[in-house]
């Protein structure tokens, strides 16, 4: 509050301050060794001030009243200097004050309260289980836990305290051909990072599943190289979540669409807004996509965003048609005439106290279909196709048209039956045609959450944790390449 008063007195029309403590624990292992053991904690204060329609942002690790005042004055002074280079002043959409806001990620077991021995024992047991499979030569495993404790206050009258948790257990096993002519890896791609506590590690069952992943790494050595061509693709949720992230999550960021990220993350094919909102046919009628910051267990789930806007849930694609973008307070008026939405969707986020908040992706999820199919139903209905599980190599152009996505494991499908394992598979396509080739959608029973800690955007680049829910889905006649050939 000292900082906010100082900013107002110095001339800010709006200011917010965040005091943030970030704890980041990581345990890494390889084979029988603990290779990385750390438990980091940093704290700092950031003040953002708006003066003459321009932003200033200053942050420091020093926490005391005098420093808070100094930062506020410096942020105002910086904003004044910046205003000379601003053409269109920032306008913030109104938000209700939340003077006593409190929210915490609903976890069952605090990961930082679990003993180190238990964590290390679990990882080394999982490594041993993987290395028990003949042909498995190397294994790494890890656990990462993050806790963000934030007190955010604004001159709009909000004082909000939040504690966010993230948990990610992983395992990667590598098989090497006896003659050193090939090596193949398999990661625990089905175990997503989640906004949960240590209960997620327990549910992941790394030790029990490690032999299966190890066997698949070994199988990949002798898998059949894929024949390039057009195939029906059945995408498991452990794979499809990242396709959604790249081809729906990023193009529907409003700052991209209007050119604000052109120098790094890129722009979007979904532009200009007035020509695509309510009319762009993203996919078939069975395609419904929501943006959401309320889903339990998802990584971008919060009580409020980093400018005091309560968590929201809203449609992005309705019955196949694109209907809305992701927004922050200053972006609302850019499109409100076209959407009729006069409030922020609450997409402001900063990775830490030392970075300014800006528009970041909420959880963007593909809703299950009305027919209650499971993945086996999709397979049974497919004459010639490929089943893809897990995330692999992902690349997409800066407007989100042309993509090339790989995976962890691939299986041939013939006449409704899963056949042998394939390797060196990637599919290429163009986003609008790809989503319009969606012809079969799993139901609620096949719905899962995938996610990442490391959605990158902005300059300086910041990481945003985000989840994507989806059922299994089938796409018709997608171009598949062999990644070792020249096609």
């Amino acid at each position, binding site marked *: 509050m000292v900082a906010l008063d100082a900013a107002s007195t110095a001339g800010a029309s709006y200011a917010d301050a965040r005091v943030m403590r970030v704890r980041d624990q990581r345990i890494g292992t390889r084979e029988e060794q603990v290779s990385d*053991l750390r438990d980091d904690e940093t704290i700092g204060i950031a003040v953002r001030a708006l003066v003459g329609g321009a932003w200033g942002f200053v942050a420091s*690790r020093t926490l005391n009243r005098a420093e808070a005042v100094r930062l506020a004055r410096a942020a105002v002074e910086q904003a004044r200097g910046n205003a000379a280079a601003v053409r269109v002043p920032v306008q913030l959409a109104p938000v209700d004050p939340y003077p006593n806001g409190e929210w915490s990620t609903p976890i069952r077991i605090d990961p930082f309260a679990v003993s180190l021995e238990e964590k290390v024992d679990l990882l080394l047991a999982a490594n041993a289980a993987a290395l028990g499979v003949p042909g498995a030569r190397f294994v790494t495993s890890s656990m990462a836990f993050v806790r963000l404790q934030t007190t955010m206050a604004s001159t709009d009258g909000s004082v909000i305290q939040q504690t966010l948790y993230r948990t990610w257990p992983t395992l990667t096993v590598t098989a090497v051909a006896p003659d050193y002519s090939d090596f193949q890896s398999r990661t625990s791609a089905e175990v997503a990072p989640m906004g949960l506590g240590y209960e997620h590690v327990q549910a992941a069952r790394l030790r029990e599943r490690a032999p299966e992943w190890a066997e698949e790494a070994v199988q990949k050595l002798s898998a059949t190289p894929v024949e390039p061509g057009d195939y029906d693709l059945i995408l498991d949720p452990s794979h499809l979540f990242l396709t959604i992230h790249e081809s729906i999550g990023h193009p529907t960021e409003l700052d991209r669409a209007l*050119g604000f990220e052109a120098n790094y993350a890129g722009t979007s094919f979904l532009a200009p807004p007035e020509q695509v909102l309510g009319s762009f046919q993203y996919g078939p009628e069975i395609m419904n996509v929501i943006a959401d910051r309320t889903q339990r267990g998802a990584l971008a789930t919060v009580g409020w965003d980093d400018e005091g806007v309560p968590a929201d849930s809203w449609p992005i694609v309705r019955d196949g048609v694109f209907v809305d973008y992701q927004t922050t307070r200053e972006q609302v008026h850019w499109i409100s005439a076209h959407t009729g939405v006069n409030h922020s969707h609450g997409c402001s986020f900063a990775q830490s106290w030392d970075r300014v908040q800006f528009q970041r992706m909420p959880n963007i999820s593909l809703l299950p279909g009305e027919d209650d199919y499971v993945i086996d139903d999709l397979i049974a209905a497919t004459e010639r196709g490929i089943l893809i599980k897990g995330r692999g190599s992902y690349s997409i152009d800066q407007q989100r048209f042309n993509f090339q996505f790989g995976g962890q494991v691939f299986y041939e499908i013939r006449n409704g039956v899963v056949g042998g394992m394939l390797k060196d598979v990637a599919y290429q396509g163009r986003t609008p045609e790809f989503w319009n080739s969606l012809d079969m959608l799993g139901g609620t029973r096949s719905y899962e959450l995938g996610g990442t800690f490391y959605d990158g955007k902005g*300059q300086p680049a910041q990481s945003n944790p985000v989840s994507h829910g989806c059922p299994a889905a089938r796409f018709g006649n997608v171009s598949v390449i062999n990644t070792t050939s020249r096609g």
Partner: protein
Amino acid sequence: MSILTEGEARQLCERVIAAGTADEMLVRVESGLDGNTRFAVNQLTTAGEVEDTEVTVTARFGRRAASVRFNALERTGIAAAVRKAEQLAGLAPEDQEQMPLLGEQLYQTVPAFFDSTRDLDSTSRAIVVKTAADAAESAGLVGTGFLPRVARITAVANSNGLFAYQRSTLASFTTTVRTRGGDGSGWAGTTHNDWVRMTPPAELAERAGRKALQSVQAVTVQPAPYTVVLEPTAVGNLIRLLANGLGARAADEGRSAFSRPGGGNRMGDRILDERLTLYSDPQDPDLLERPFTDEGEPVGRTVWFENGVLKNLAYSRYWAERQQAQSVPLGGGLKLEGGSGTALDLVAGVESGILVTRFWYIRGVDPRTMVYTGLTRDGTYLIENGQVTRAVKNLRFNQSIVEMLDKIDAIGEAERVVASESGGLGGAVVVPPIVVRDFNFTSNSDAV
């Protein structure tokens, strides 16, 4: 805030070491000013100025070790962090690969700190950004860009008497300029430790604007292997990935592009074009990198490829001892020696090909051969009879970067580039423009 002097950094390290009771202690201090200013749609959007000092303490009991990074540096904060590191280390299993701490070392002197860069405060940056944004506006174009700068120190100390200290500055300026109709896009950028030695932002803004205007009305070319002229930034985008494959251990264990079939690694083999020499050297005036690792191991000049022959791989201290080799740390930047001439000079020698400004979203596809995929971006042009004739639509590639570096037709003059796709302040990369045969484009992109 002033930058920590060597004496202040040493004092801080000593305070942390003195707070511990572990067998051995390792401390790293990273401290300084981190500022940046962004602009988009021809106006300044955000800026930031951050002051921080972060300490990473590693406590070791025999072969047990754990680390804690923290920035609460009052006496109680230091004591709590050291205690946490010691508690964790006490619980950790023994790491058989743990090497003893180094003793006192000698380091190269690297003059990487420049007042001109330190003094690039938010007011100065706003003026620079306004110049670039106004240039785009007056040309009827849309300018976007980023100007980050750091002024920082790194110090490493341990309970065996080792102490290392380095202060440095670094800045970059990158800009993407687009046409108002969104049918053209151009990029330009530069980076250096010394702001004064960087290409003036106004000149870069003009270059990016020219590229944007030249990239309209792009034609589609059939994806296929082409002769390409890669501008230095495009070369840097790919060369920095080569460092990912330079680990000796992965090569010896059979899981690297530099593994020898049947066992061992490929050191001694000619792998790249005979004209290519790639090295790291913190003292090189074009690189000016930190002359020690996070553990205080000295980093000197290492030639990775000499005249195309793989001369060195990076050995950790553990792997070096096990393989009875010399420890060779990764670090010290990357420099690919060049010849003479700019990218446009190289174009003059190409009958038919494609000129690439930079690449985007580069990801590994096949680690066995270092095949990467990615796309061209912000200025891709057709070359006909030694001239740039028109813009082509962007293309996706799937290409082994090792194989690419053995298909070189010509090499230009090396320069320091912004090699990271994010325009951030990464390790120093100095590379020439090159002409490559049969660069494998696999599909077209509609992205501008």
